[in-house]
């Protein structure tokens, strides 16, 4: 299997705080990989390093064979990585459709001249953008609200809209930051199905999630972070029974019975 994303000894320091310490992760093409760990373990920092928000203090990040650490954020996106945010960051006064169209636009070329003169390729791109956006809204299951302003959508729909917007940039690797947060069991089930569908479309998914039921169910492999260090990696059931992981989550047990 091909390695799609590789974290090679990545260390990330903010002043005196070390958010990530020599983290090695490699994610294969076509898998669903979960990143778990207690609060403050550095999971979102991993996302921020991947997407170019932070440049790692040490180490390299390779994506699809090329180094991407230090690359501009919008270039990382064009290269094929898209993400959602832990605290939803939609363009919330724009409609659902427009939100997704911004994502589709990442691969469009029309500039000011094409738009002002209404040149044919501009119209073609607009049409393509609109169609793609509609398709994606249907894909994540919120096609019925395409004309609603994002902030008026329900919480679950906003999470779905973020996923649609990220998919609109046509990523090879999709990063989902706690996609199930705040969802009810029915919504979580639907989300699971959606993530599988995204993978079956040929994309790789890296997700941060606290809901263990969902993580164990859906992920092919997972890694556990604690205090910025990777303490375990492997198949779900291996990780589940790993002593270090249990300690990290529950604290060191005192009665060993």
């Amino acid at each position: 299997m091909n390695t799609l994303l590789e974290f090679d000894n990545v260390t990330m320091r903010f002043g005196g705080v070390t958010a990530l310490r020599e983290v090695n992760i490699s994610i294969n093409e076509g898998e669903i990989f979960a990143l778990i760990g207690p609060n403050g373990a550095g999971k979102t920092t991993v996302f921020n390093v991947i997407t170019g928000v932070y440049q790692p203090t040490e180490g390299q990040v390779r994506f699809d064979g090329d180094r991407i650490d230090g690359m501009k954020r919008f270039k990382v996106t064009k290269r094929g990585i898209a993400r959602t945010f832990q605290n939803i960051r939609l363009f919330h006064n724009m409609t659902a459709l427009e939100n997704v169209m911004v994502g589709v636009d990442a691969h469009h070329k029309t500039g000011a001249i094409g738009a002002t003169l209404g040149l044919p390729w501009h119209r073609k791109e607009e049409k393509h953008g609109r169609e793609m956006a509609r398709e994606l809204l249907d894909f994540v299951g919120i096609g019925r609200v395409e004309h609603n302003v994002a902030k008026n959508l329900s919480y679950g729909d906003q999470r779905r809209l973020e996923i649609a917007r990220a998919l609109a940039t046509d990523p090879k690797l999709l990063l989902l930051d706690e996609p199930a947060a705040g969802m009810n069991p029915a919504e979580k089930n639907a989300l699971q199905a959606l993530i599988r569908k995204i993978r079956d479309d040929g994309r790789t998914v890296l997700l941060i999630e606290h809901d263990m039921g969902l993580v164990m169910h859906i992920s092919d492999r997972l890694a556990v972070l604690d205090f910025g260090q990777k303490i375990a990696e492997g198949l779900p059931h291996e990780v589940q029974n790993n002593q270090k992981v249990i300690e990290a989550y529950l604290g060191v047990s005192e009665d060993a019975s």
Partner: protein
Amino acid sequence: MKGEEVATSNGKPARSGFHPIDGMRDWWADAPHWQRYAVYIALIVFALILPAPWVGSFMSPDSDWTTVLIFPVGTYILLAVGLNIVVGHAGLLDLGFVAFFAIGAYTWASIGTSYGWSYWPTVVLGIFLASISGVILGAPTLRLRGDYLAIVTLGFGEIVRITANNTDAIGGARGITNVPHPEPIFGVEFFLDPAPYYYLMLFAIVLVVTFSVRLNKSRVGRAWAAIREDEDAAELMGVPTFKFKLLAFAIGAMIGGFAGTIYASKAVFIEPNNFPFILSATILAAVVLGGSGNLPGVILGAFVIAWLPERFRFLSEYRILIFGFVLVLMMALRPEGLLPSRQRKAELREGTGGMGAMGAEVAGPDSEASAEVAK
């Protein structure tokens, strides 16, 4: 884009009471093509007969109405439409917009007097030079956000004026006299009669408004809206934010320069004091008072701001007092502007996007670090 936004009120609670502006917006959103074109044609016919003396006898009893329509009214509208792209669409606060107006005006004045070029190609040159200066100003400064950008642009406006004041090659403080009128075009003579200038100005406004609407409906307009709402999220969705902000600056500057070339061709005489900071502030006031981001609002705002002091000319100095009073009243009664765009109105209410990055709590990498690293 405006159009579709409007059709989107389904998620909102039903509005109570009578809202003529929202009602009109909804009608406009669903209006078929022929109705829209009928409105466009009606507006243009209205603009064509606007200089009629009987209109002027009410609107401007103390000075020549057609002249007033060219400067300040038409000029302010053109400038406001340009500044609206920077402030209203891209959400960047520019306090030195008059600099581009000055560059356009000086381009025609100096080239027309010294080299005897024809007016029409020089207009293109003026627009080009203004956009270049917009890029030169924007390239180093657009990395700044909010207040800092405002301060730098304010400085730029002053630099251009002071440079003109101290450069003898373009007349220094004495300015440039005997700026030539444009050559006749399509059999229309430009000389002392203000009417041709009015129609030239009208043509410029229609052209610029058309371009502005088209831009805003395109990928470019969506990118601007995204930047205004959440610059970091926009960048992570593949929007090259810096490039698009620079583009907004350049396009705004082009329109400012265009207005400048027309102004100079009519004015015969220009000097550095024609381009004071207060003019930048006035145009910004027109944009904000009208409803930044919404073209009809911006045009109405510019009209009101330009016309009020002319209407009350008979009060001599006191007219400025009335003008100030009306401004305060308008801001107190309609802080979102006379005709705000729905999106901007909502942003303003949240206290985030109202004045672009000014009020936005857009986190830089550092503040984001503190917020997200803790998870």
